[in-house]
């Protein structure tokens, strides 16, 4: 229960910066200087920065008026008196947000993109990805757990560019009928064979010249070595997810030319073992 702000979840700031608690532009109801949305962290548009008492990254809400996991919302007034609603993206709860804040140059997820999201769980980060790609893009969200799957399906009911797939990501042939070719694969599967999973899915669904973004836990690669030794120099872009996540890194790479799955997984495995 939070202080009374009307019924329902997600105490959005409705222009009353009450005590300034919480994050984000703190009540963007005063024109475009407060709660201003600056575009463009992490490559192309879609992700904005809200400046205020505390800065936060936000995404433009695909379904205005709805919140997915009780996150805060920020309203910005345009010159023509319309309101734009943004949802705050919490880096403590989302590895992709952490990577963006950490300074990754390009996440390849932009408006109109087609994204395959492996490890969607309850769909909290998926909802933000769906906001970014907008109504012209598509997000294929794969989750295996049934409990989380229910939340994912409920979220997908509102965000209509998300296609929920409750299936094991290890077997892309099982859901091949539901997925087209995608531009980006985002993987947050937290499984020891993440490389094989990614390679297999890429061989089915990732277009040539497509990219992938993975979140890797250090102890999946080699739990005996210290973290620093594991994540060393690579040809790909890499960002450590401290202080939001311990021993995690986010890696961005590209499929320059399609190798066969075995080779690809070796290559990916090579990242980790260096």
């Amino acid at each position, binding site marked *: 229960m939070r202080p009374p702000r009307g019924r329902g979840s997600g105490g959005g700031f409705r222009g009353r910066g009450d005590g300034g608690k919480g994050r984000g532009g703190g009540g963007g109801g005063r024109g475009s200087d407060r709660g201003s949305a600056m575009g463009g962290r992490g490559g192309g548009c879609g992700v904005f920065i809200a400046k205020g008492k505390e800065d936060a990254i936000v995404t433009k809400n695909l379904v205005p008026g709805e919140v997915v996991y009780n996150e805060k919302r920020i309203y910005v007034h345009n010159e023509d008196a319309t309101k734009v609603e943004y949802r705050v993206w919490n880096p403590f709860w989302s590895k992709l947000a952490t990577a963006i804040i950490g300074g990754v140059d390009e996440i390849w997820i932009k408006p109109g993109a087609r994204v395959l999201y492996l490890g969607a769980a309850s769909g909290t980060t998926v909802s933000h990805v769906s906001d970014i790609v907008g109504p012209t893009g598509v997000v294929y969200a794969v989750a295996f757990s049934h409990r989380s799957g229910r939340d994912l399906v409920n979220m997908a009911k509102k965000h209509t560019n998300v296609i*929920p797939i409750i299936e094991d990501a290890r077997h892309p*042939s099982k859901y091949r009928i539901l*997925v087209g070719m995608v531009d980006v694969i985002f993987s947050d599967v937290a499984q020891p064979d993440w490389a094989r999973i990614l390679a297999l899915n890429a061989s089915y669904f990732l277009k040539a010249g497509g990219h992938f973004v993975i979140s890797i836990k250090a102890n999946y690669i080699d739990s005996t070595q210290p973290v620093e030794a594991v994540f060393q120099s690579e040809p790909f872009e890499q960002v450590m997810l401290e202080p939001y996540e311990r021993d995690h890194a986010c890696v961005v790479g590209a499929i320059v030319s399609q190798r066969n799955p075995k080779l690809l997984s070796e290559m990916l495995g090579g990242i980790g073992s260096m």
Partner: protein
Amino acid sequence: MALYLLYESASGYALFLAHGLDEIGQNTEAVRNSVSDLNRFGKVVQLAAFHPFESALDALNQCNAISEGLMTDELRSFLELNLPKVKEGKKLKFRLGVVDTKVGSHIHEVTKIPCESGDFIHELLRGVRLHFDRFLKDLKTGDLEKAQLGLGHSYSRAKVKFNVNRVDNMVIQAIFLLDTLDKDVNSFSMRVREWYSWHFPELVKIVSDNYLYAKVAKYIEDKSKLSDESIPGLTEVVGDEDKAKEIVDAAKASMGQDLSPIDLINVHQFAQRVMDLSEYRRKLYDYLVSKMNDIAPNLASLIGEVVGARLISHAGSLTNLAKCPASTLQILGAEKALFRALKTRGNTPKYGLIFHSSFIGRASAKNKGRMARFLANKCSIASRIDCFADKATTVFGEKLRQQVEERLDFYDKGVAPRKNIDVMKDAIESAESKDTEMETEEVHVEASGKKNKKKKSKGAAAENGEPAADDNPTAVANGEALEDSKSEKKKKKKEKRRMDQELELQDGQNAEQDGTAKKKKKKSKDANGEDLQSADGKKKKKKSRNEDAE
């Protein structure tokens, strides 16, 4: 040799013909290059046939079959129709490329069509996937995505067993509507009274009930037409002959003005509306009750349907209610008082919506707070069971209700309530026996320890604070406990089949779990909180004493 490609899409099955290819000559690298360019690819691969799925249900069946690696009849007939015939003994002039080897082997088994899959096929099919929407002229852009979206949703919902009947949104909407209806019916009734009183002012004082007033007004219409002959009819409407007489007398001496026929018709119609709305309100209430029993039977049996529905709607959903701590549940609905007290460092409220359940009213003023806390704790357990249990059962709700009653007794008379662990053990056993009830009455006592392992109720484990393993006492003791609980079960009036002997778990018997089992009320009233594990005979005597006492 011609190479066909089978491609499964969300809109339907497609068959492509790849020609001009020589596999030995081509390596995957070259194929890859030709794949990315549609013109070049289009020369190599062409659409041979396309079979759209008949309906959403058909699409779901196909999708399920594909994910298992099986071939459906529709796929089979599609292939046989569009591929050249397979002749026995002759050399086959074509091959079919598929992505999945399982499907391929199944197809080959049934139809003898030679299938193959490999890197080469894989590359070609990647190209097909990339350019698919261009191949099919009839498909507009976005159609394929819509098909994928619909199919994805139905596939996923089937996986998570999305039960439409257990959607708590209906209850939230119903309770809102109920409140709105109440207000509206009240305003309309007031309006009828005022309006009709222009014509017949005395009626307001005689008939005080809103619904009855509307009925009477509708029946009487023009008061000058009232006479002694209409008394029987009026008695039927009002239910009381004296009142009917009063009405007729008052009508004769009334000082209200006359109304023209048109006006009377209007009043009549309005009164009819009010009555209809009242009827509807009643039906809505029944609907709410039945929905509550579907989605939250334990909560409903513990505090009643209306209060339970209010709690759910206040929290936002059943899941939200289950997630919040019991202290929150206690003061749900009293937020204004709560935060005011917190700000001014005063006393926080003791109860919120919970206050409207009957238990708080029955407690003495000193104990209201304690009862509220106790009740909130039990409600929290009930809501969690409802939210996360797979089967719908009211057993736990009833047991919890008994605990609340016992606690009330304790405050009133000092009667010590039963220990929680015993009650919960009871509840688990009845829940399991309900699982596997049988048509014939058998009295087997199968002291199988695994029974307790099966239905591990979260509530019980959490309540007892003991490891779940403790729930599994030795086989002998278990047998005794079951026997005892058997002898204590009483029949509720409507239940025909249940005997005092418990119906025990048997192997392989189909069980019909009664979802809305309000009919069964197994009371194991244990007046002095004695240990359940005592001899049968003593229990039986006790039971009959209890029966007498009631």
